[in-house]
């Protein structure tokens, strides 16, 4: 990734987005820590944690947009990669509890003592080291995505079939993680975390740091996605999305391209999950629920698929709305609203917020040809994908 490529790939929207995220990532933690509590400008700690959660969702949405918006792969199982990353981080946090658990066992986490486990299962080895856990956050989801994708793309499972088997995958993992003898805490999952790298996870400054890190991860993730989609590889991905067979006949190995982007996307989802867990304080099998993955897809659709910025924006907007409505008197109607959102966005706003805004901007600019000074990247079609789908 050369500096030249970086600047070339940034259009005005992306610049604004990155500036806002960076500003939030710096200002919100600073305001939370430095200003006196109760002051007008001080961001309360609970909001830092809440917004940290949204930022993690935004990374997840970004990873979905990378494959759905640019390669036409609709994964209904991305929540599984998110949860696997979360479990990898959760396992590290569990090992950090040490003797401070209820049963005070220096090696075994509480739930294992409770279930009469005699020794640590082999797949828990190494998770007492942060670097190993951090590696696993990338490796486990990436490896699963690689194996899954290798099987699926090679035998040309596409479209809704792929969506359905990704859903089956996350459902199978949901069932597996619910089992106590699977060694991941069963129904209750992993919780009661104490500290991360020696810092108390409950402390304000740790939370602020985690928030800043999440924003940084969002920025890095965005730049990675941006670099992928604006490279030659990205052009091939868009070609696969719009006409898979034709791309194959032109001599591209479609499977390899899809497999690469699917694996990268899964790793990103894993990172999002790993940042999510210490901020939320728990990871349990319900994160694997197929409904969660589909909800993440709708964030992307709301923001605008194939725009990257839109995916992140959609995740934040929808989740903010969810928090707002489910905490008030309107709580019983939230599912109606969410359901209606699914229907209305697909029917009336197929390009999402950003996509619609972009085409409005374009048409407005065409009327005033004197003002054609926007960066070249906006015109190369990346921000405005054709919505043509490979019909089944």
């Amino acid at each position, binding site marked *: 990734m050369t500096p030249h490529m970086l600047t070339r790939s940034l259009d005005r929207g992306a610049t604004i987005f990155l500036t806002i995220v960076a500003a939030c990532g710096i200002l919100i933690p600073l305001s939370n820590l430095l200003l006196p509590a109760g002051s007008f400008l001080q961001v309360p700690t609970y909001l830092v944690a809440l917004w940290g959660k949204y930022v993690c969702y935004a990374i997840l949405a970004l990873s979905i947009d990378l494959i*759905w918006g640019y390669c036409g792969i*609709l994964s*209904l199982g991305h929540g599984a990669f998110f949860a696997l990353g979360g479990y990898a981080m959760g396992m590290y946090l569990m090992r950090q509890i040490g003797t401070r658990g209820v049963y005070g066992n220096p090696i075994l986490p509480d739930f294992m003592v409770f279930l009469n486990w005699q020794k640590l299962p082999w797949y828990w080895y190494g998770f007492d080291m942060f670097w190993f856990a951090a590696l696993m956050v990338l490796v486990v989801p990436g490896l699963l995505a690689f194996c*899954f994708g290798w*099987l*699926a793309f*090679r*035998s*040309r*499972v596409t*479209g*809704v*079939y792929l*969506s*359905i*088997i990704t*859903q*089956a*995958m996350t*459902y*199978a993992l949901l*069932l*597996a993680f*619910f*089992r106590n003898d699977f060694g991941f805490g069963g129904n209750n999952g992993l919780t009661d975390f104490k500290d991360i790298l020696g810092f108390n996870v409950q402390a304000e400054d740790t939370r602020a740091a985690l928030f800043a890190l999440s924003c940084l991860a969002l920025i890095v993730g965005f730049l990675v996605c941006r670099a992928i989609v604006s490279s030659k590889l990205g052009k091939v991905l868009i070609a696969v999305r719009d006409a898979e067979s034709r791309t194959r006949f032109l001599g591209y190995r479609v499977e390899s391209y899809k497999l690469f982007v699917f694996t990268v996307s899964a790793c990103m989802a894993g990172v999002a999950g790993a940042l999510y867990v210490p901020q939320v304080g728990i990871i349990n099998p319900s994160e694997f629920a*197929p409904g969660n993955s*589909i909800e993440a*897809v*709708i964030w992307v*659709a709301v923001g605008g698929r194939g725009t990257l910025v839109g995916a992140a924006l959609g995740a934040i907007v929808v989740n903010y709305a969810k928090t707002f409505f489910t905490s008030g008197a309107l709580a*019983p*109607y939230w*599912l*109606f609203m*969410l*359901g*209606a*959102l*699914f*229907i209305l*966005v*697909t*029917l009336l706003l*197929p390009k999402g917020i950003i996509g619609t805004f972009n085409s409005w901007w374009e048409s407005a600019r065409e009327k005033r040809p004197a003002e054609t000074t926007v960066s070249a990247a906006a015109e190369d079609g990346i921000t405005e994908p054709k*919505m043509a*789908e490979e*019909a*089944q």
Partner: protein
Amino acid sequence: MPTNLSARLCTLALSLFLIAFALPAFAGPFEDAVAKFANDEFSDTEEAIGVVASSGSPLAFPIISALQDGRLMADPDTKKVYVTGTDGKSIDAATGQPVASVPDSASAVRLNNRLRRSVDAALGSLTLQSPDLATRLQAAQSVFKSHEETALEPVESALAKETNKSVKTALGEARAAILLYMSDATEVQKLEAVATIKARGDQDALALLTGIGTDQPASVTKAAASAIGSIQNTLAVWSTVQNAWYGLSLGSVLLLAAIGLAITFGVMGVINMAHGEMVMIGAYTTFVVQEVIRTRYPGLFDYSLLIAVPLAFLVAGAVGVLIERSIIRFLYGRPLETLLATWGLSLVLQQAVRTVFGPTNREVGNPSWMSGAFELGQITITYNRLWILVFTLAVFAILLAMLRYTALGLEMRAVTQNRRMAASMGIATSRVDALTFGLGSGIAGIAGVALSQIDNVSPNLGQSYIIDSFMVVVFGGVGNLWGTLVGAFTLGIANKFLEPVAGAVLGKIAILVLIILFIQKRPRGLFALKGRAVEA
């Protein structure tokens, strides 16, 4: 007053005389035996059980069953024995007269394991000649299990009088069990007994034959060993049959849930994530029908399902047509968007039902003809499962006939095979789409009626079937009803055969993984459409 006094004396004398002579007259072997309970010695108790059980006294049954439950109280001082009823009232065990209260010195007659077996056997033989058929059968079975030597005589006398065939068989088996374990039975008798028990061939027979011990004649041991082998084979066969039946039953449920999906997905290529909610609507229709019947026409309850089936079809079908006209028709050619929109729809429908009917499970009753079970060989088949299987196959056959022989069916097949060609031939494809979607949804509604009989009717009912249904359709192959049939039964049976080996959850996970792998091999399912329709 002398006369008065002498009269009194006479009465007294008479009373004394009567007491002196009448008491021994009553104190027969039964009363003696009852008194032995008061000794509270295990050997005496055992003797007493035998005598009481064979006395023929109407008190025998209450005494022995009280002994079993620790309600037989004995006073070691007065040698009186009392039966405390479950209602707290007590009677004198020897006479059957009610007593005001059991003295404090009385304590429950103790039992040990050996005595408990005698008690079981005694109770068994006591009920062997009960007028009630089910009681007799149960008694014979309990003797079979306890095989106490003391029961031989009652069993044989019961066998002589018995007229019912199944009770007679059970008594014969009980007799065989006793003989097999009796040390002074002849070798011939024992061999016969082994043959009888072998013919019974179930788990109990196996346990009985395995436990005969080593002090038997060699020929008997050999016969028993061969009988054990043959019973184990029979049992293995029956357990296979049972798994197959469970599998068929699960398969029928899957088929019922998936068949509507096969139509919408197969014919229209529409992924209807709200399909499960159509099933739920059908189940709630059944609930409403039953509520109306319960409050207005209680006599019609047995017909409630017959009424609910067409209603559920109409309600769910109408909702389906409405969905197709208002949402799905705008999304043709965009299957992934359809998937998202229908998922949103499923959320809305679930929440709507939750708002109207509440979040908890609603009770839907089984009509009398759907409750209960019957035995087939060594497996138990419940009527509701059987009826659902029959019903599913009927729905499948009707649907197949409809597709084959009606004008709508012809049009539907034409649209499935080549939409544009069908349109060129003058088929109103959008009307066919609406009707197809209505048909698929209506069948899901019918499935809901059936599933309300075996599952909880709650707003989440549909969600639990949606992934399974998709698996069935994808596995079986899109656009082919036979594929759905084969897919449903294959998955159902595979699931039930994996369950005993791997456990319910792991079995399900294994099936999901297998399907995922299978789709890699055959991306378009078992029975894939061939030719241009695939890429259309």
